[in-house]
């Protein structure tokens, strides 16, 4: 159960929020002028990195506001939240916090609860 900081209400329990998928996926300005492929990229294709991920959340059982968050998908730590419309912080800012719990490998998963010798 994560503790998520709503930019409007402060820290609240995860159960009050709903995840809204990847953030900063912009809707094409002129949908009629984009190719099928470009449109499909917008509608269907999302990135799924292990590590730093920009995503949207909505405080659905609270102020109902949408906001953005930076989460480390390998540790589930939410590193930062910011309002819609604010400039996302560069990914470089977070590189050094990229760590896995329990010494998991950088790619893929596994149940390595023992420190690698």
């Amino acid at each position, binding site marked *: *159960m*994560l*503790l998520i900081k709503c930019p409007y209400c402060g820290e609240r*329990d*995860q159960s009050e929020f709903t995840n*809204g998928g990847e953030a900063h996926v912009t*809707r*094409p300005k*002129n*949908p*009629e002028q*984009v190719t*099928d492929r470009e*449109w*499909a990229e*917008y*509608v*269907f294709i999302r990135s799924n990195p292990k590590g730093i991920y920009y995503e*949207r959340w*909505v405080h*659905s059982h609270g102020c*109902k*506001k*949408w906001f953005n968050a930076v989460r480390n998908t390998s*540790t*589930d*730590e939410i590193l930062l939240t910011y309002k*819609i*419309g604010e400039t996302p912080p560069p990914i470089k800012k977070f590189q050094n916090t990229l760590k896995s*719990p*329990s*010494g998991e490998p950088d790619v893929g998963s596994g*149940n*390595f*609860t*023992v*420190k690698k*010798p």
Partner: protein
Amino acid sequence: MTDNKIYFKFDGKKYSGVKGDTIASALLRNNVKLVGRSFKYHRPRGIYTCGIEEPNALVQIINEFNEPNVRATVKKIYEGMVVKSQNRWPSLKRDFGSINNLLSPIFSAGFYYKTFMGPKGFWKNLYEPLIRRTAGLGKPPREFKSKSTHLHHNVDILIVGGGLSGLLAAKKLAGTDKDVLLIERENELGGILKNSNKVKSINDQKTSEWLEKTERLLKNSTNIKILKNTTVTTYNYSNHLTAIEDRSVGIEPDNKKSELVLHKIRTENTILANGHIERFLSFRNNDLPGVMLAASFEKYIQRYDVVPDNNPVIFTNNSSTYSLLKLLIDRNCIPRAYVDVRDVKKIERETLDLLEAHNIPFYPKSEVEGCDGNNKIKKISLRTKKNKIIKIEASMLCISGGINPDIHLFTQSKGLVKWDEKILTFKPEKSFQKTITLGSVSGNFIFKKIIDEVNQKLNFIDGVNDIDIKIEVNGSEEFNIKEIWETKNNNNSLWSKSFIDLQNDVTTKDLTQAIREGFDRIEHLKRFTTNSMGTDQGKISSINALGIVSKLLKKSVSEVGTTTYRPPYNPVSFSAIAGRSTYEFYDPERKTPIHPWHLKHNAVFEDVGQWKRPWYYKKYENESMNEAVQRESKQVRESAGILDGSTLGKIEIKGKDALEFVNMMYTNSFTKMKPMSAKYALMLGEDGMVKDDGIVCKINDNHFITTTTSGGAANVLSHMEEFAQTEWPNLNVYLNSITEQFATFNISGPKSRIILSRVFNNIDFSNHKFPYMTFNTFDYLNYKVRILRASFTGEQGYEIYVPPKYALTLWERIFYYSRDVDLVPYGTETMHLLRAEKGYIIVGQETDGTVTPLDLNLNWMIGKKKKDFIGKRSLTRSDIIKGDRKQLVGLVPVDKSYGIEEGQHVIEDKNIPSQIDKPIKMLGHVTSSYFSPTLNHSIAMALIKEGNRKIGSQIYVSTSNMNVIPVEVVKPNFLDPENKRLLS
């Protein structure tokens, strides 16, 4: 009662225990050793431990709704408790299922995966019922009543465990400005101080005196809260932990079910001081009743004043059993033998002195080979230093295979553990969260070091001071252990088994076999053998399994690794998880203001989302649903009907950019639409699929009211909010749910205008003044009503929106004015029939998230001149315009006497071969089907491949009895295609 005896029943026989007894301690008091049968082989099992780690002694509490799998070693007795053993038939002593034990060669690891593969149908009809009867633990309760609740805590520091180190930590934090929560599993604080006599004195006082003083100090500290009888079960991310408190320990719960509290704790720092668990050893028949962990045996004496046996044999590989030896001797109970796998040179001086002074048969560098007996130990067989087998008569055997820090919670928190070669166990290495481990859970088994540890690890907290106490121990300070996981077996009979997991009946042989078959990764091995997958998660045995596997693989334990310990730490009752959310509180029921009237008029209700909607009304006692629906729908078409449509979702959209926003949300164009008019509108997802439909009412360019499907209201609002906030935050638009601000009645039928003119006699309802798809707000009595000319039945119809508090009176008034008009109340089923006659779709019935407006032939609803709306671009994707998609059509049976079944397949070929060897080509499926009383035949809608092109042709619909019926494909508009009725 004058004495302090408590009477309870076990398997029908009455026993007595004393206050504070667990079921196990009370049974041991009565010398009952056999308490259950094992999971797979139905072997006799006794009480193995004295706490939460118990793998064997699981019982069923009959008078608490049959609560199954209760640990007899934890549950405290009360007067009149009725307890039953589990997993045996017909009785505990003569169990039929124990034949499984003799069949064990076929029940080996992977047995289920390999054996029950075929023939077809055998699993469902034969194997599964058979396995279910013989395998498994207790029987599930038939009833369920819960008084459980949930509580939330936000604290600075959570201390898990009220033993010596937990108490020292709390003492250190007492009087600071930190909010501290201390959680203790047992009903008393003290932990090791209560369980054993290892600690002799603290500050030259008896440990009980020190405990009393400390507890008083903590209770007087305003910043410390103590919860007893509470077990922390889960350690999540963000220092969020859950714990279960049992509020009816040792008393009969007043509603026959324990009152549990699920505590949800959010903390800044977590101090794990949850101690250790002793582990067992594998040898021949190490599951026989009478085998017990040494520290548990000691705990029964110390905590419960029960000596399970006066002259047990002690078998150990480490120094910790000294305290048991001393305790027994202090009580004049002389062990029959002391067996230690260590060399005499390694064994502590104190132990040797005691053994010698009391002439106890002593076997250093020896091991227990196995034990024998029928339902309990009779003889224990030893292999001595000189490899000689000798047999000792005894009825109990106390074993200790070492000590494991209780790292379950630590690993749940994602902390890293490391194998320690000196103490032969995993211990915490690195925390992932703000987690501190203290005492034996951190691998610190030396009491004198605890003070330093507490001071060192907690000094970072503001406002704490160093604490200093003097601890004297019985016996040696150092912990010494020799590696051994299993002893050599001298007897290969079928009965002889050396267990590695007692609860799941996994033997060391199963491990060997699994490795031979290639399952040499520890996570695979666990699943293949089910080792440590029981409700106890192998608390006393999982490390032993790693030890054995490491030997078999010739690797170090560290390389083998450990499996993931998963939450919960111990089984959590569903009643605790459910809390108060049961029965009517599980999911709220929403009722319309007309609900009491529906009840009075024998409505049968249907659940639509959380709403209770009248499905149909029973006119007389035996009227069937079909009869009612035929009657209601006929009457609507002949005179008039009224439907309670209050459940319709209603959303108000306001703002300078409301028009632009509504244009983006729906496919239709609203720009040229006149104020005070309405439009049937479609909402798509960005993928172009129909998401919802409803009526959009335009008050003006800055103010719209839209309706949504009853079940989709919340989703539609959040869909709108999402786009308003994230995609077009620059638009000035405000959204508000007004579903509950208005009750809605749909009146339709040829007589509806007459009825309304009577009720609202100042309003002109003529077609000229009040045309189709217009609306207005009127003053009526002392409130306002909004009336919309619209219809979902194809008849002349009106929708009335009224504030809920006036709704019931208005509803009754409408009936009052229709005394001679034959107005019928109708439910959702009749509504479905009526709209199907007109070919109107229902989102969720004709659509399933893969249907575009083009597939529904609703092209006319798409604003052609609109540059953009949500989903528009997808409608021209190559995949969508391919032409071979499924389209909505109507079906009419060629022979009008046939009925079409909803959900059936639509096929091209009328012949279904008797032997089906390849899939039959399917055109689509029937989405709706009804018998129309007005048309006097069956009508259906279906989504079928290239449906539009098939209109006029004959195809087939399958039936549930493997037949087909021929149908004609028609346009889905069965009644009044010219809309004469609608516009009349």
